[in-house]
């Protein structure tokens, strides 16, 4: 029973971290139809931004939102200079090559400027683990899960209730329709890209104390985020959340009770099963638009 509860806790906390990375990925795909292979690089940028800010004496908790802003600014610069010119309306194939190139460029820049070695990122939670009724919860993980929850719920409410948020959803549902509704589509796309990469940067800044900052730190997390996003339905935000929890919990249970070696395959097996049953993913909507 103890092991079961501990596994549920592990899975939920794991899933909340995946959700942050996956939401950024799914928003960018939804509105821009870009498969953002540079997502992991923005994740790393978030971690390095925290690191740099800490070197200037900014405390960790303040450095997190600032890091997300720094990543947003870098993302906006890349969006204006490369993504917007090269990618809009060019389909998903071109986007893979170009975002992959951006990813390589960012990783190389980090290596050149800061170096390849992993650097520890300090957090006020340190290594402390809380022992609640004999269950271990790392304070940093709890903080990550809490922040992810607050950010995701806030973001979801903003998307549903603000006009700009609704316009992001509108562009992802029907970009052509948005053009006929007075919506500034390029502006909404920039905004989505910035929000998407800022979410990746935020995730990087939150997870950095657990995994240290190193140039390719985003790769593994983004691979999982891809399974999460495909499972939940590309472009669906609710789907990304559900997918993250499903993958987080199933990974935790599988690793604890079945086999450690097979866990990475599990995500993709789930993806294949779900896609066989629901080709749009768990919450991806089939187009209902009747003509």
């Amino acid at each position, binding site marked *: 029973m103890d*092991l079961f509860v*501990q*596994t549920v806790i*592990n*899975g939920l*906390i*794991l899933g909340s*971290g995946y959700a942050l990375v996956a939401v950024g990925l799914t928003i960018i795909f939804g509105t821009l139809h870009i498969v953002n292979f540079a997502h992991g690089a923005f994740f790393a940028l978030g971690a390095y931004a925290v690191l740099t800010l800490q070197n200037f004496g900014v405390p960790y908790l303040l450095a997190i939102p600032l890091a997300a802003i720094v990543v947003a600014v870098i993302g906006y610069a890349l969006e204006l200079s490369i993504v917007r010119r090269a990618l809009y309306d060019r389909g998903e194939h071109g986007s893979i090559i170009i975002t992959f190139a951006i990813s390589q460029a960012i*990783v*190389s820049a980090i*290596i050149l400027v800061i*170096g*390849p*070695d*992993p*650097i*520890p990122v*300090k957090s006020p939670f*340190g*290594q*402390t*683990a809380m*022992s609640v009724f004999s269950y*271990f919860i*790392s304070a*940093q*993980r709890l903080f990550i899960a809490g922040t992810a929850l607050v950010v995701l719920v806030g973001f979801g409410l903003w998307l549903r209730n603000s006009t700009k948020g609704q316009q992001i959803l509108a562009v992802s549902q029907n970009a052509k329709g948005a053009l006929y509704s007075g919506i500034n589509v390029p502006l909404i796309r920039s905004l989505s890209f910035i929000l998407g990469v800022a979410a990746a940067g935020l995730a990087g800044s939150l997870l950095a104390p*657990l*995994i*240290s900052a*190193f*140039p*390719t*730190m985003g*790769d*593994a*997390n983004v*691979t*999982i985020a891809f399974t999460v996003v495909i499972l939940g339905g590309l472009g669906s935000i609710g789907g990304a959340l559900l997918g993250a929890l499903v993958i987080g919990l199933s*990974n*935790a*249970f599988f*690793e*604890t*009770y079945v086999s*450690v*070696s097979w*866990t*990475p395959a599990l995500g993709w097996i789930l993806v294949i099963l779900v896609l066989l049953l629901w080709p749009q993913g768990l919450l991806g909507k089939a187009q209902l638009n009747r003509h």
Partner: protein
Amino acid sequence: MRFWTKTTATILASALTMSASAFAADPVRIGMVLPLTGPTAGYGKDGKMGAELAVEEINKAGGILGGRQIELVFDDEKGTPQEGVAAVQKLMTQGKVKAIVAGMNSSITLAQAAITKNKILHIVPGAQADAITEQGSQWLFQINNNSTTNSTIFHNYLVNSIKPKTIAYMGENTEFNKAVLQNLQKILEGSGTKLVEIANYDGTTTDFTSIITRLKAANPEMIYVVDAYPARTAQIWKQIRQQGGFPKEAHATGTVQTSAIIPAEGAMEGVITGDIFIAEGATGAMANFIKAFEAKHKVEPNKVSLVSYEAIKVVAAAMDKAKTDNNYDLLAKTIRGNAWPSPRGNLTFSEIGRSKSPYFYIHVVKGNNVALRETFEVK
């Protein structure tokens, strides 16, 4: 007739000597492939510094083969077998190198060895897998101890000196780590120690909480982690610490460097490991090497710097002694037939190209580095 023959021979000989002396000024190019980027880029940095020190010393002392300088040509294996093979091929075809020094990661080295086999002299500085020297490559030599040698000493030490009743094993799912696991299982046979849990995780794993939960559920007295990636090593030990740790803790030999210990932020304190090198308490040639290294690079050398340094030194000394930079049969024979002075003492190579370190050290992580716990002579 005889006169003409003699004259021709003389002219030919003098022409050859002339061209030989014309070449004497040309440097000997040695290609070195390292992970300069990617997850093990720290090894690349350390290895490059070691090799550069060796070249500086050799060239300052007048070079080799009658005054020829050594020139290092670096290429990046980026931590993947594909890039590792491509880098070796590039150096062999376009780099005009006379020898290849390559191999930190065992799977990458195995791929590279297939390319260099019967083509060029290949010195492997860091990689430890037994298979590297078991492929019948006559011109390949391994500077580091092979995995079985190190593991056998270390596992025996764990069983006989630390004496845990139960061990839980976790390691990345690679051929190299499986060999370490098999060695452990063999040594545990008939001992009082039982292996109660085995977790082979994939290289893409970022979160070890569930694995550690699983291992803790088996309630072992000792955890034994086998992982060669510094960032991941730090991460695993942090997560172990967050879940309360284990009574006894050990990490695979030859893989614990400051590049893992520092990012672990104290989480590796007290972890037992081992290696062929330790800076602490060094004397003689080793102390001189450490001093020279620190003077040039302003940091303390580690095992990776040492084996890279030695690899270059062995290539250079062998070329000088055999008086050739491209007769690889002769070079290989020379390397096998002689003892090569190194900071660790004299290095000798077996028929299949394996070297054996004179000493093996048991370490324990202390602060930002490892401290010496015990020294073993390698038999």
